[in-house]
C-alpha cells in the first residue's frame, strides 16, 4: 500500500504549528456580546431569590437570564440537567444566572452585582453514603425525568442507573474455590486538562435559525441535544466546530452552549460568546467520575479464576445525563479482558453534590482496570504464581468468552503480554545506583470497546475536482488524535491519489455529513469505513464512465496514480480529473455530471444486552486488547516515584500511520501516568480545593519515561484495512501498571490514586519497615 500504513505527515500540522489555525475563541463578530456566569458558592442549596437589578443597571449590560427564563430539562441519555439552575443548585459552581454585555469585563463586573439568596441544604459528598436509604436526594424528581430505555434510574434514591450482570453460578463458584480474596479500590475525580478551554459563540437570527460555533467533539450530537432542549428544528440549527484544542471526552456533550443560546434567543442578530477560564474548566465542565470498587475473587490454586463478585459505585456528581452510560460500560466490561465463567456485578451511577461527571478518555475502563489489574497481582501473589502467569492463564483468547458471554473471535492479548514482558525485561530486577532508591516492575492489561448506541452511524462524502484533486467531507473532529490525516490517507489509498491532492473538511452540520460523535475510539473504524464506502462509490462512477470512454470492460479497469487504467493494456487510461464533471463526448455533449461519492456505515449486528442479566452475544462493535509493562524507581527517603520506562503493546488490527499512532500511545501513557502519580480533584464538602495548575499537577517534559511502543495486527473484520480503535485504551493499563510496579519496588499497595510521595511515605512509616526490607504480604 502506498499511503495507508505510512507515517504521512499531519495534514493539519502546518496550520497548528504556525498558529494560523483559527479556534473558536479567535472568532470575532460585529455587534458581538460577551457572556459571564454567576455561579453557586454552595454544593447544595435552594435558590430563594435572585436580584438582577443592580447588575442590569451597569452600563454596557444588555441582558441577564436565570434558570426561571428557561426551565426545560436536557441531557444526552437522561434528561436531568438545566443549563442554568432551576430551583436549586446541585454543585459548587453551578450556573445560576448569565449576563450578556458589550465586553467581557463589564459582563464579569455585572455578575458580581447579581444578588442571590440561598438556603443551604445538606450536601451529598460520598457516593456510597448517597446510596443508603434516607440519604438526602440530589434529584427528588428523578422519577419524572425522560431517559433512554437502556438506562435504569431508581426514583426515590440517588441511583441514576443500575447495570447488573449475572453470569453462571457465582455462589457455587465461591463455595468451590480454593482461595477467596476480597479487595476494595477507590479512584478519585480527575480532569481532562485540555490545552484549549471550552468556548462557544451562539447567534439567533430573526428567521428562527440558530448558529453555534463551539469547540466540540461532536457537532451532530450537540445539534441534536440543543435542538431538543431549545425546540429548534434540525434544519434551523447549525453547529460548527472549526478546530478543537484537545477533548479527551470533555467536549463530547453540551456544556456552555446551553447557557448562551437562551441569551442569543432574547438578543436576535447578536452573537454571544462565552469562553471558560482554566478555573472554570476544573469546576464547571465534565470531570472524570470518582469510583469505589469492591472486587471479590474466587480462584483455584492453579491460578484459574472461577468466580467474580463486583460492586462499582460511580460518583457521578450533580448531573448524570452522560455518566449513566459509563456505569453501563463498566458493567459489561466488569471482568476486564479475562475469561471468567461465573460473575455477579452491580454497577451503579450515583448522584452526589460533586462536579458533573462525564466522558473521559477510557470511559470507565481506567477506573475499572485500576482495581482489576491490582487485584490480579494480589491474587497471583496469594496463590504463589507470577503476575504474568495469572494473566496468561485467565486472559481472553480467541474462543473464550467475555463477561457478557460474547465469544471472542479476535484477541491479540497473549501476544501483547508476551511483547511487553520482553520489552520491559520483566523477569530481570534492576537496582538503583542510589542506596535510598529502589526499583520495581509492574504489568497491567487493558481493554475497551466503543461505548456507543448500537446504531451509531458515520458518513462521508467525496467530491472530485476537475484537476484530479478531491474534497473529503466528514464530521469526525480532529481533536489532536490525527483523524484528519488518517481519513485523508484512507481516501488517498482508495482513490490512488496522493494525500496532498485531498482536502478534508469537517465540523459543520449544514455542510459536512452526519457523524454520531467523535468519541469511543471509533473514528478510524467507523468513519474510516464510511470513507472507504464513499471511495468505492466514486470508483464505481469513474469506472462506469471510463468503460464508455475507453471501450474496455469495467472489470478490467482500476485506479492508478490519478488515472483509470486498463489492467490489461496499461497505456489505455483516462485522468480522473477529466471525468470529475462527467464524461464529455467528441461532439461536446456530456453525461453523468460531477462525481460525488457517498459512504455510510453502521457497525453490523450490535444488539442490546439482556436487561436483567446484562448478558449479550454481541453488545459492542469490537474489543481492543493490550498490555503495558512499567519500571519505576521509588525514593525511600521522600516517597517520590519516577517512572523510568514503559513498554506498551496493543492489538490495533492495522497500524494506519505509525508515527501518529506512536504519538497517540505516548500521550496516553503520560496521561495515565499523570493520574497515577499527581492528578486528583481534591474535594472537601463538595468544594474543589485545587481548581488551578498551582495545585492540580499534570506531568511535564521532565517526567517523561523511556517509552517502547509496539503493536500487534490481528485484522478487525469490518474496520478499514482491518483497523480498530486504540485511542482511549492506550492509557488504561498505565496507572495500574505503575501501582503494581511500586508494590514490586516497595511492598506498598495504596488501593487509591494518586500515588503521591506523601502517601507512599506515610505507608512506609506505618509498615515500619527497615530501609530495604520487604512487606509484601497484603
Amino acid at each position: 500500500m502506498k499511503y495507508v500504513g505510512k507515517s504521512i505527515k499531519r495534514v493539519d500540522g502546518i496550520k497548528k504549528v504556525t498558529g494560523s489555525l483559527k479556534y473558536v475563541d479567535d472568532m470575532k463578530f460585529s455587534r458581538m456580546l460577551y457572556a459571564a456566569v454567576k455561579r453557586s458558592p454552595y454544593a447544595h442549596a435552594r435558590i430563594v431569590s435572585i436580584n438582577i437589578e443592580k447588575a442590569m443597571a451597569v452600563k454596557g449590560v444588555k441582558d441577564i437570564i436565570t434558570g426561571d427564563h428557561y426551565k426545560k430539562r436536557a441531557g444526552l441519555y437522561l434528561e436531568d440537567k438545566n443549563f442554568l439552575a432551576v430551583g436549586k443548585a446541585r454543585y459548587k459552581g453551578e450556573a445560576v444566572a448569565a449576563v450578556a454585555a458589550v465586553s467581557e469585563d463589564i459582563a464579569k463586573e455585572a455578575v458580581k452585582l447579581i444578588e442571590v439568596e440561598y438556603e443551604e441544604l445538606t450536601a451529598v459528598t460520598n457516593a456510597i453514603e448517597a446510596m443508603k436509604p434516607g440519604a438526602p436526594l440530589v434529584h427528588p424528581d428523578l422519577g419524572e425525568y425522560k431517559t433512554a430505555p437502556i438506562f435504569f434510574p431508581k426514583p426515590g434514591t440517588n441511583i441514576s442507573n443500575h447495570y447488573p450482570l449475572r453470569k453462571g453460578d457465582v455462589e457455587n463458584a465461591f463455595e468451590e474455590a480454593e482461595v477467596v480474596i476480597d479487595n476494595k479500590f477507590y479512584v478519585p475525580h480527575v480532569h481532562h486538562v485540555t490545552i484549549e478551554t471550552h468556548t462557544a459563540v451562539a447567534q439567533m437570527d430573526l428567521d428562527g435559525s440558530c448558529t453555534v460555533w463551539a469547540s466540540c467533539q461532536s457537532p451532530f450530537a450537540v445539534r441534536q441535544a440543543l435542538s431538543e432542549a431549545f425546540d429548534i428544528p434540525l434544519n434551523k440549527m447549525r453547529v460548527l466546530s472549526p478546530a478543537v484544542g484537545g477533548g479527551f471526552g470533555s467536549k463530547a456533550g453540551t456544556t456552555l452552549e446551553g447557557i448562551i443560546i437562551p441569551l442569543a434567543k432574547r438578543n436576535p442578530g447578536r452573537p454571544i460568546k462565552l469562553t471558560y477560564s482554566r478555573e472554570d474548566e476544573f469546576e464547571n465542565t465534565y470531570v472524570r467520575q470518582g469510583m469505589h470498587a469492591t472486587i471479590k475473587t474466587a480462584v483455584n490454586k492453579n491460578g484459574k479464576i472461577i468466580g467474580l463478585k463486583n460492586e462499582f459505585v460511580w460518583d457521578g456528581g450533580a448531573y448524570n445525563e452522560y455518566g449513566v452510560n459509563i456505569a453501563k460500560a463498566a458493567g459489561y466490561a466488569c471482568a476486564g479482558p479475562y475469561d471468567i465463567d461465573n460473575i455477579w456485578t452491580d454497577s451503579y451511577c450515583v448522584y452526589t453534590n460533586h462536579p458533573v461527571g462525564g466522558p473521559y478518555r477510557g470511559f470507565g475502563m481506567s477506573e475499572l482496570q485500576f482495581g482489576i489489574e491490582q487485584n490480579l497481582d494480589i491474587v497471583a501473589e496469594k496463590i504463589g504464581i507470577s503476575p504474568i502467569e495469572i494473566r496468561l492463564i485467565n486472559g481472553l483468547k480467541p474462543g473464550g468468552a467475555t463477561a457478557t458471554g460474547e465469544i471472542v473471535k479476535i484477541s491479540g492479548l497473549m501476544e501483547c503480554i508476551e511483547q511487553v514482558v520482553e520489552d520491559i525485561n520483566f523477569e530481570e530486577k534492576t537496582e538503583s545506583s542510589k542506596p535510598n532508591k529502589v526499583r520495581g516492575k509492574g504489568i497491567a492489561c487493558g481493554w475497551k470497546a466503543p461505548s456507543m448506541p448500537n446504531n451509531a452511524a458515520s458518513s462521508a462524502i467525496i467530491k472530485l475536482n476537475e484537476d484530479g484533486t478531491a474534497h473529503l467531507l466528514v464530521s469526525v473532529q480532529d481533536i489532536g488524535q490525527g483523524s484528519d490525516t488518517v481519513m485523508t490517507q484512507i481516501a488517498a489509498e482508495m482513490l490512488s491519489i496522493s494525500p496532498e491532492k485531498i482536502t478534508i473538511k469537517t465540523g459543520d452540520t449544514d455542510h459536512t455529513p452526519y457523524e454520531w460523535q467523535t468519541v469511543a475510539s471509533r473514528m478510524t473504524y467507523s468513519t474510516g469505513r464510511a470513507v472507504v464506502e464513499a471511495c468505492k462509490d466514486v470508483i464505481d462512477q469513474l469506472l462506469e464512465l471510463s468503460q464508455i470512454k475507453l471501450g474496455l470492460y469495467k472489470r478490467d479497469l482500476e485506479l492508478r496514480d490519478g488515472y483509470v487504467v486498463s489492467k490489461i493494456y496499461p497505456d489505455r487510461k483516462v485522468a480522473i480529473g477529466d471525468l470529475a464533471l462527467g464524461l464529455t463526448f467528441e461532439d461536446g455533449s456530456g453525461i453523468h455530471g460531477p462525481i460525488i461519492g457517498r459512504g455510510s456505515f453502521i457497525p453490523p449486528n450490535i444488539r442490546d444486552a439482556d436487561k436483567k442479566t446484562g448478558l449479550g452475544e454481541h453488545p459492542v462493535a469490537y474489543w481492543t486488547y493490550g498490555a503495558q509493562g512499567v519500571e519505576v524507581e521509588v525514593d525511600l527517603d521522600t516517597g517520590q516515584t519516577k517512572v523510568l520506562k514503559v513498554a506498551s503493546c496493543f492489538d490495533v488490527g492495522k497500524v494506519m500511520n505509525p508515527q501518529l499512532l506512536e504519538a497517540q500511545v505516548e500521550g496516553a501513557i503520560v496521561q495515565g501516568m499523570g493520574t497515577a502519580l499527581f492528578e486528583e480533584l481534591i474535594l472537601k464538602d463538595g468544594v474543589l480545593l485545587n481548581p488551578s495548575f498551582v495545585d492540580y499537577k499534570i506531568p511535564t517534559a521532565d517526567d517523561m519515561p523511556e517509552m517502547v511502543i509496539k503493536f500487534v495486527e490481528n485484522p478487525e473484520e469490518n474496520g478499514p484495512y482491518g483497523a480498530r480503535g486504540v485511542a482511549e485504551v492506550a492509557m488504561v493499563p498505565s496507572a495500574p501498571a505503575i501501582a503494581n510496579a511500586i508494590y514490586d519496588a516497595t511492598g506498598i499497595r495504596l488501593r487509591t490514586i494518586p500515588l503521591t510521595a506523601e502517601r507512599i511515605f506515610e505507608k512506609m512509616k506505618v509498615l515500619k519497615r527497615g530501609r530495604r526490607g520487604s512487606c509484601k504480604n497484603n
Partner: protein
Amino acid sequence: MNAFEYFAPTTLKEAIDILNEKGEEASILNGGTDLIVRMRDGISDPKYVVDIKKIKGMDDIRIENGRVFIGASALLNDLGNNQDIQKRYPFLSKAALSIGSKQVRNRATCIGNICNASPLAGMATPLLALNATVHVFGNYGEKDILLKDFFVFVRKTLLKHGEIVTGISFEEQACLGVFTKISRRRKVDLSTVCSTVVKKYDEYRISFGAVAPTPVRLNKTEAFLKGKMLSKDIIEKACELAMSEVSPISDIRASESYRRELVQVMLRNSLSQWY
C-alpha cells in the same frame, strides 16, 4: 482584573514620590509574576501600579568590594545562569532555577520573590544562609535590613509603604552549600519544603522554607552543630533537633507531619555530603 493607572518612573526618587503621593492604593510592579496573578484573582486590587523595571541600574548582578550584589530587577534566569554565581555559589543558582518555569523566570525577579515573602519563597533559604542584607530606599535615603529580620509573617515584611528594595547583597565567602527542594512534581511546582545548608569551616547555617510562617534559620540546630565534627550520630541528633525546631502546617500540598519528616530527610542528606 480592575482598571488601574500605570506609572513607569526612571529614577528611584520619582518612584518614591509616586508611591507616597498615591498612598496605600499604589503597588510596586517588578516582574509581576505574583502581583498580576493576585490582581487577576481579585486578591490585590491596586488603583495605581508603579513599574520599577525602568529604573536604571537595578538589574545588576555584580561582585565588588567583597560583596555579591543582586539588583532588584535582576531576573531569576539571569541570576541562575550567572557564571560567577554558578561557580562560587552553585546552591544559589540552583535555587533560582528551581522557581516556576523558564518562562516565569524570564519575568520573575529574585527580589520580587523575597518581597513577596511567601513561607516557601525559593530564594529565601540560600540568601538567609548567606547572611544576606536587604537594601532599601525611602524618602529618608538608603537603609539596610538583615534578611533574617526582614520577614515578619506570611507575606509580611518590614518594608513600609513608600519604600523600595533596590537589591540584596551578601559578603563574599568561601563556603559549601546544598539547596534542596522537595515538591509534588519535580519541575514547575511550589516547594513542599525547601532548604539550604551552608558549611563554612565548622560553622553550619541551616535555613528552611514552608515549615513556618516565614522562611527560617534553625538557630538551635546550628548552635548544636557549631564546632562539631560531623558523624552519623551527630547528624542524627541534628536532624531530631531540626524536626523539633520547625512548625509546619497541613494544607492541600502536604501534611504537617510529612513536612516535618522531610526536614530531617533534607538535613540528613545535606549534611551527609560533608561526612
